[in-house]
């Protein structure tokens, strides 16, 4: 059992949990992920490491409430526990002094990106950060990101704050040369970023979120096509060279269980959702 010791709402339906897990707190690195199981009947869901504190012995993750499991998780309170956490899993991000780095984070992935930005900064990089969301209400960590970056931009899909869409990136990219781009967010956003950076020849790393079960190479459900080859998202990734990823294939596989997911979510809400899930 892993006890929740901190809970914060970062934006509507986006929550950050801090849990007691001393051994993981010592081992986790930016870019890795955890697999969480809420209870006996729960599924295994992967969430990216969004923080660790070896002294306190805690580890954090942020999640978007999209379906049954994440909604149920969101109902838990400080003092509650989840049945199981496995991690850290996957390869840590490549952190070194690349020179000038462009860090793009969309939606819930802004939370783990903060760790990456901090690490890249400590490694000596000059950093441009872009945070994006669908609408301005879903943005968070603007101040934290701004404090860590040399240049800082905001973008929203509807233009309610900062730039509208991602086209402005072309301007930034033509003004100065970047040695690395890290893009974490919804698959469609990562796909768009890769299309924009490719002509500029900026090496671009993305983090892939295929459906996973074990997260340690045993089931193959997380297979993705990268550079024409089959890779396992959990052990070969989760980060890959974005210019080689078959994003459309990934999107297709992510939708595999859509009808079942809807059913699961609906049933949970019919049974009263939060009121029973919160114990």
């Amino acid at each position, binding site marked *: 059992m892993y006890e929740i010791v901190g809970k914060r709402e970062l934006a509507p339906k986006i929550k950050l949990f801090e849990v007691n897990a001393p051994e993981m707190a010592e081992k986790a690195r930016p870019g890795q992920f955890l697999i969480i*199981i809420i209870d006996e*009947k729960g599924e*295994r869901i992967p969430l990216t490491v969004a923080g660790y504190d070896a002294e306190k012995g805690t580890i954090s993750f942020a999640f978007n409430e999209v379906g049954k499991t994440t909604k149920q998780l969101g109902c838990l309170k400080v003092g509650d526990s989840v049945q199981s956490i496995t991690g850290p*899993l996957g390869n840590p991000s490549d952190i070194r002094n690349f020179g000038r780095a462009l860090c793009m984070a969309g939606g819930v992935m802004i939370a783990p990106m903060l760790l990456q930005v901090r690490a890249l900064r400590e490694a000596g990089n000059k950093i441009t950060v872009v945070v994006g969301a669908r609408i301005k209400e879903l943005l968070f960590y603007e101040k934290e990101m701004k404090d860590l970056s040399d240049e800082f931009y905001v973008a929203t899909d509807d233009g309610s704050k900062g730039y509208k869409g991602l086209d402005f990136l072309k301007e930034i990219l033509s003004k100065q040369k970047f040695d690395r781009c890290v893009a974490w967010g919804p698959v469609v956003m990562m796909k768009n970023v890769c299309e924009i950076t490719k002509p500029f020849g900026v090496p671009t790393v993305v983090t892939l979120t295929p459906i996973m079960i074990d997260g340690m*190479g045993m089931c193959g459900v997380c297979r993705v096509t990268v550079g024409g080859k089959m890779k396992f998202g959990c052990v070969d990734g989760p980060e890959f060279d974005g210019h080689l990823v078959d994003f459309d294939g990934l999107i297709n596989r992510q939708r*595999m269980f859509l009808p*079942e997911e809807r059913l699961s979510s609906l049933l949970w809400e019919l049974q009263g959702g939060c009121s029973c899930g919160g114990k």
Partner: protein
Amino acid sequence: MAESKPKPKIKKEAEPMPKQKPEVRRKNFNEVALGYSEEQAKTEANRCLQCPKPQCVTGCPVEISIPEFIKLLREGKYEEAAKKIKEKNSLPAVCGRVCPQEEQCQKFCILGKVGEPVSIGRLERWLADWERKRGNVKKPDDPPPTGKKVAVIGAGPAGLTAAADLAKLGHKAVIFEALHLPGGVLVYGIPEFRLPKSIVRAEADYVQSLGADLKLGYLIGRIHTIPELLKTGFDAVFIGTGAGLPAFLGVLGEHLGGIYSANEFLIRVNLMKAYAFPFYDTPIRIGKHVVVIGGGNVATDSARSALRLGAEEVCIVYRRSREEMPARKEEIENAEEEGILCKFLANPTRFIGDEKGWVKQMECICMELGPPDESGRRRPVPVKGSEFTMDVDTVVVAVGRTPNPIIQSTTEGLAVTKWGTIVADENGKTSIEGVYAGGDIVTGEATVISAMGAGKKAARAIHEYLMQEK
């Protein structure tokens, strides 16, 4: 061969195993084989000749004193009989169910020369079930502690056996298991209808009751490495991480929706209990026309699970012929009784998807058997121009599994073969002092009982290693 003349009264046929009827069991996940009644167990036990030089024992990798436990059983001393088995085997209810007995102990039973061998496995199962149902599983007295600590990596049959034997010798065994439940293939691979998970759980609990600690959700190599374990208080390490990586066919279209590796399919169904979705959260989708590619236990298990999940038609497609199928005979028969179809001498060449990225057809090529290959089996070769297509909406690829690689890549100095298995001698000793390995991680895909035998030998070798140290 013992010279004892079979007495005229010897019953040549073994007691039959009561089973759920095929038309009933194909719709549920309950155990197929129901187990002997007390009377049947006694009748079967009475067939044993109590050979002075029992050949059956030579066929058991964990060295169970077979005639002795059978004798106790027929005298009605069930508790002592169960204890006799557990001197050597900590997972009797598991072995009694999934051991390939016909290739192990029973192959050597003298009665096999005149009729059917004694059903040793079924008797073992009956005793283990009797003890568990009685709710009072006896364990041996605690040994004096040696003060030595051993890390056991993986809670499959190899790891559980090693941990149990080490604990019985007074060492502190700590099992690190990457998944959230113990058992390895017993819990994530072999289906409920052949091996109920409550039984795996009970036997894993028994191993813990002997004094072994179980830590779940620890992927060694990521959270701790073997060198770190040796530095932080462990005197020795046993690696029993198994062969859990799924192999794919490497043909076009394998990324399509509806195509599962057997591991994914079975993990969803067994470990995550997707057959009870949405009561359990992990989903599975099963179509009308299911094909399973492969010919081993994994293929028959997948096919029979698919049927129980509601498929209209399930067909096993295998590239060799029936004679070469590596699955247990009993399980192939069970599968056929349930209505599973088989297509031999065919191999998929590509999968064709619909506009939504879901598989709709499979193209295959016919095979013929050529001269034998290294394994001694006749090699299948494609027949030019013989391609044909089948309409399918669910595919399970069960063409083999390779060793889990994380330990090998994070342990400097650990010798590994070109197949990725760990190099170990017959006692499990690896190239690193104090580090032992056994089970599928050393042999490649094998059996539950051979993994347990390896765990047992390694525990003995670790014990010698630890006790010679000053």
